[in-house]
């Protein structure tokens, strides 16, 4: 690796043209999204309508919010594979609270708290027990999925007595914009602000960029890591509540493989799995690219199976583009 890195650095000074190319490459995810939309607009008359675009945004919200959380984790150089299970867990816990007749607000808070607690567990396993993030969160993914089944006997819990709950996710602002889309953008803005403008955000980049240098600069690396997993759990809990509200139930088997979709969105958005690099804006664009792709292919009558093939190809292509971008530096 080092050798290649050095070889790269020996390339000639960049010219004005190369600078432009750099800008283009930086905007690559956004441009891809626009191109994709243009392509589907031509390919299907139904694609470019307010209704359909709002549907896409709605479909993006849940994955998008989780992807924002896991972006933090990935920038520190970690990974969280437990998102899907944990999301379902938050729905199940909220549902259990509902069955004993707790007020709606309390149910929601319990749901979010349950997921946040899972985040704390992941963080503690990674920092205190020194278990690699991949393993720690893989273990959590399996165990929590099991807990979901244990708590519910494998059956969904419905929020029959809470008619308001469903409107939280199925309602629309001005009858146009679905509420979850608002949540996505509000959370996105906040998360981007934290990442760009606060000490916590700066430390996240520092830890991912060079953990030892960060430690020797006096940064409490373990605490930063613990906090990113906790934050990721918190957002997963919020995503879980949105999904539960949309389904009006806590589904113990909901969200299978959502973690992989979230990670794919993060990666498409230009965040490096090696850590130190990434943005929230990129992640949201990445999440939108995935749902536009699904929606557009659907409208064009492409089968579910081929859609999976296409999504996989897009993930790989996005990282390849990213490599090209780095090489052009």
């Amino acid at each position, binding site marked *: 690796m080092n050798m290649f890195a050095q070889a790269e650095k*020996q390339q000639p000074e960049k010219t004005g043209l190369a600078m432009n190319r750099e800008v283009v490459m930086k905007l690559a995810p956004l441009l891809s999204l626009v191109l994709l939309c243009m392509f589907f607009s031509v390919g299907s008359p139904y694609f470019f309508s307010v209704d359909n675009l709002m549907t896409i945004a709605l479909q993006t919200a849940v994955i998008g919010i989780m992807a924002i959380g896991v972006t933090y984790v990935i920038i520190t150089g970690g990974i969280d594979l437990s998102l899907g299970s944990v999301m379902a867990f938050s729905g199940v816990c909220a549902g259990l609270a509902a069955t004993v007749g707790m007020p709606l607000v309390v149910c929601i808070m319990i749901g979010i708290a349950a997921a946040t607690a899972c985040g704390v567990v992941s963080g503690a396993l990674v920092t205190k027990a020194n278990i690699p993030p991949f393993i720690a969160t893989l273990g959590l993914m399996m165990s929590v999925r099991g807990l979901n089944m244990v708590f519910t006997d494998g059956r969904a819990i419905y929020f029959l007595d809470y008619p308001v709950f469903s409107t939280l996710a199925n309602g629309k602002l001005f009858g146009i914009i679905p509420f979850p889309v608002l949540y996505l953008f509000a959370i996105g803005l906040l998360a981007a602000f934290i990442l760009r403008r606060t000490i916590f955000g700066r430390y996240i980049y520092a830890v991912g*960029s060079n953990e030892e*240098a960060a430690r020797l600069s006096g940064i409490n690396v373990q605490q930063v890591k613990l906090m990113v997993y906790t934050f990721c759990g918190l957002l997963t809990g919020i995503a879980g509540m949105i999904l539960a509200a949309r389904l009006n139930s806590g589904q113990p088997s909901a969200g299978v493989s959502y973690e992989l979709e979230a990670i794919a969105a993060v990666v498409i958005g230009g965040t490096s799995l090696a850590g130190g690099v990434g943005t929230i804006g990129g992640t949201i664009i990445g999440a939108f690219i995935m749902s536009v792709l699904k929606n557009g292919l659907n409208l064009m009558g492409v089968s579910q199976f081929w859609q999976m093939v296409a999504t996989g190809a897009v993930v790989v292509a996005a990282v390849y583009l990213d490599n090209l971008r780095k090489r052009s530096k």
Partner: protein
Amino acid sequence: MSDTLLVMKKITKRFPGVLALDGVNFEIRKGEVHALLGENGAGKSTLMKILSGVYQKDEGEIILAGNPIILNGPLAAQHLGISIIHQEFNLCSDLTVAQNIFIGREHRNGWLLDDNKQNQAAAEILKSLNLDISPDTQVSSLTVAQQQMVEIAKALSCQSRILIMDEPTAALTESEIESLFKVTRMLKAQGVGIVYISHRLEELAIIADRATVMRDGTYVGTVNYQDTTLDELISMMVGRDLDNIFPVHHSAVTEEVVLSVKNLCRKGVLNNVSFDLHRGEILGFSGLMGAGRTEVARAIFGADPIDSGSITLNGKQLAGHAIGDAIESGIGYLTEDRKQEGLALGLSVETNTLLSNYPRFANSLGVIDEATGSTIAGQLSKRLRIKTPDLQQLAGNLSGGNQQKIIIAKWLCKDTDILIFDEPTRGIDVGAKYEIYELMYELVRQGKSIIMISSELPEILGLSDRILVMRHGCITGELQRKDANQQNIMKYAALEG
């Protein structure tokens, strides 16, 4: 035995911003041990990396046994019988000895691995080296010396005609060195040409036939080792007048003790290390690699745990032994290895400068005041004359000297009182070194104190007000500036006593 095996002629190598090698000549004969000498940064490693195919030369030619050769990769060098044993070994520690020796060239039986044959072949090589190691031992269970022998066995199994050893004795005990020399002599007798890179001149006197000296990327000369005195070699290595590479020395030492270290112990690493540091002093730490100098620094800074001992700062004993405590008390540590430990290369100059001090530029919610941060980083960058297009440039894109300045800026930003420079100019070219030295003087004039760890004797002699020499985790000597010279430092550093 004067038949020439390999000639490197007028080798030139450039890195961005640095001329690493400038027309260097080198020659190896059959069956000789050829020492390659020079200070750190003289270009020894770069030259050997070219010979082993890791780097490609920009100019010059390499002739092996009369034929010009092209080395476009490590594999090409290996095929031509050129092997290198790096300072850090390249062994897969979870594989067996035999698997390591034949890695990439496994014995096969059709499509399948033939472990029996491979173990037999490995056993033969090990036996030829008089080594009592079983071929199916896992490498991680071997001692460092044994691992080194495995590296040598690996080189031999490639039918190497040229063997490059980079600081082979750095981690070995006396008796292990003895057996390494035995093997070396045996290889010599078989006609292998051996390049031996080392700083330990006394040791070379035993084993080396000839020596080539390099300095600042240039070729100084080649001599017969037996006909040359140590002093002659040292002056060839150091070469230039010390006055020209160091700013005029001004002592800023005061009587006031700012840091007092008492009986610092860490099992197997530090043994009762005690010393005082005065305000305005540059205290040099000299010693061979592995003598425990970096470990003292890391212990003071709280990066490594200690077993016992006390660290007193401005009369107050340091409360905890965590990095945070040290930093808050005003200690800053500039690591030996900038890229691995010092800088976040993927982040901007500004972020790296402010990294230790973000809480100062933020409100109670942790929101960073970018404008103030930028201004302060900009002022520091100007004050330290950091050459960068702008503050948003990634630290990884700057030269070594400027990267070092970023780290200095980081600690100045924190208003650090005591700075520990660990190998302050490693990998930095001469011009930039001078600037770093000037900065160090400027810092002590402002009443800061500096602990400087360096493996470059001229640097120690040129800058320090006082010099402590370490060996095997103990401080073995203390020298005032006026009494110190290379000989008495080396005596304390290298000799049993």
